[in-house]
């Protein structure tokens, strides 16, 4: 699936619920499905700054696509990062760099997170894109 197709299906899953409690429950369920991070990667190098809870994000690049694994000590944050991983993981650095993550607005995550909280969310997005930029630059350097 393309990044936008995944975004659409997430938006559809969330649109079934009007009630914010139910949306949180869905987010919590998403958190439980988060691909497990290698425990050795839960170190300071992979810790994202700017979140109230701890978030570790680990990228792996196989020369074609980036796969992310992550963990957080807070379940709602796990849910948020698992959605981001669902959307971006397994795509090329270029696709990730260019992705417009409109699903965040569409499922009401942004409006429902206060600025400081959404900083956490935005820090995660920024970090994932930064990894994509770094891998992309490395690949271009190799091609030249």
């Amino acid at each position, binding site marked *: 699936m393309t990044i936008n197709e995944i975004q659409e299906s997430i938006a559809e899953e969330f649109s079934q619920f009007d009630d914010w409690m139910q949306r949180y429950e869905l987010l*919590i369920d998403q958190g439980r499905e988060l691909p497990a991070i290698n425990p050795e990667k839960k170190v300071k190098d992979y810790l994202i700054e700017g979140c109230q*809870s*701890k978030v570790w994000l680990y990228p792996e690049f196989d020369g074609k696509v980036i796969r992310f694994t992550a963990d957080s000590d807070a379940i709602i944050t796990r849910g948020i990062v698992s959605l981001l991983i669902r959307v971006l993981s397994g795509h090329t650095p270029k696709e990730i760099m260019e992705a417009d993550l409109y699903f965040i607005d569409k499922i009401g995550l942004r409006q429902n997170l206060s600025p400081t909280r959404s900083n956490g969310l935005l820090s995660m997005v920024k970090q994932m894109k930064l990894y994509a930029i770094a891998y992309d630059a490395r690949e271009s350097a190799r091609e030249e």
Partner: protein
Amino acid sequence: MADISKIRSDFPILSEKVYGKDLVYLDNGATTQKPQVVIDTLNEVLTKYNANIHRGVHHLSDVASEAYEQARETVRAFINAASTDEIIFTSGTTASINNIAFSFGERFIGSGDEIIISALEHHANIVPWQMLCERKGSVLKVIPMDDNGNLLIDGYRRLLNPSTRIVAVTQASNSLGIVTPIDEIIEEAHSHGIPVLVDGAQGIQHGVVDVRAMDCDFYVFSGHKVYGPTGIGVLYGRRKFLDQIPPWQGGGDMVKSVTFAKTVYNDLPFKFEAGTTNFPAAIGLAAALRYLDETGREEVAAIEGGLLDYATGRLLAIKGVRIYGTGKRKIPVISFLIDGIHQYDAGMILDKMGIAVRTGTHCAQPVMDRLGIDGTIRASLCFYNTRDEIDRLAEGIQKVIEMFS
């Protein structure tokens, strides 16, 4: 006994809805809501007599200056200072402490000298002193606390020595709610001739503060935590010290005469009020203090004591809830965690139920480190809260436990 529905009707925001639910505001330690009289006062200043103070020859400037100086007198009376010369308006507690750390530091603190703070301090009463230590090569010492958040007086006594220049301690912990033994701390310091700064940010709103009875040398607080506007704070200083220490900031109004060769500083308290102060907020703060006095400060303390006991009982009755900070004397602040649930998760769900609490380290990271935790959920109450609201918090916690177990 005060009429709680009357009190609540004085605060318009309390009838707001959040996500369609009645707001339960339990974040008073961060900032308090404003009574209508404060809102009206701000409005009145801005609509009727806004003009720069102490400068104009014109009517509006006179009215504003008069109201501003009247506000200073209201603050003086509220904390029972000896003179309005000892009341300096600042932008808040943080600015007040920075001012003293700089000015007192310039005059009295040198290399190898020691400053004592406590393990319970807010970052605002840690960082300015660390900056001073860096500047002067002085040393920061910390009064230790036990596992319940009570300061260890014996540990404090051991820290006092001939190199100690100042003691700066909070009146009550913002993160745990513990009231510190401030009288003992001051008495002990004074017996060694050492002055004491009291951080009253969490003390001023919960009872009667009398700086002369307390015998502190500096007392600081913020307007917005005592039902007044944001951007205004107070620095009380004993004249003996204010006369001796240099100003922190230079600018207009703090000078008598300025030439390129020499500047003569103004008299107290203006020496410490450089630039145009936030006079509308100062006048608003005075309205808040008058409101508290009319409600009755003993009455407020009694209501809050009752709410604290009730809330403590309700929370302890929930399996898995652990309260941090237990002592004989507390302000109505309850810091807690729920077994196996991250404070951020709990805070997010409580928010969705219209319950405003704070989660995290509460600008007191060393307290959390000392307790070996990442943060807590903090419910900070005040006299306009009700038992019904505490019941809603307890129900909210039950719901959080259901969702995350």
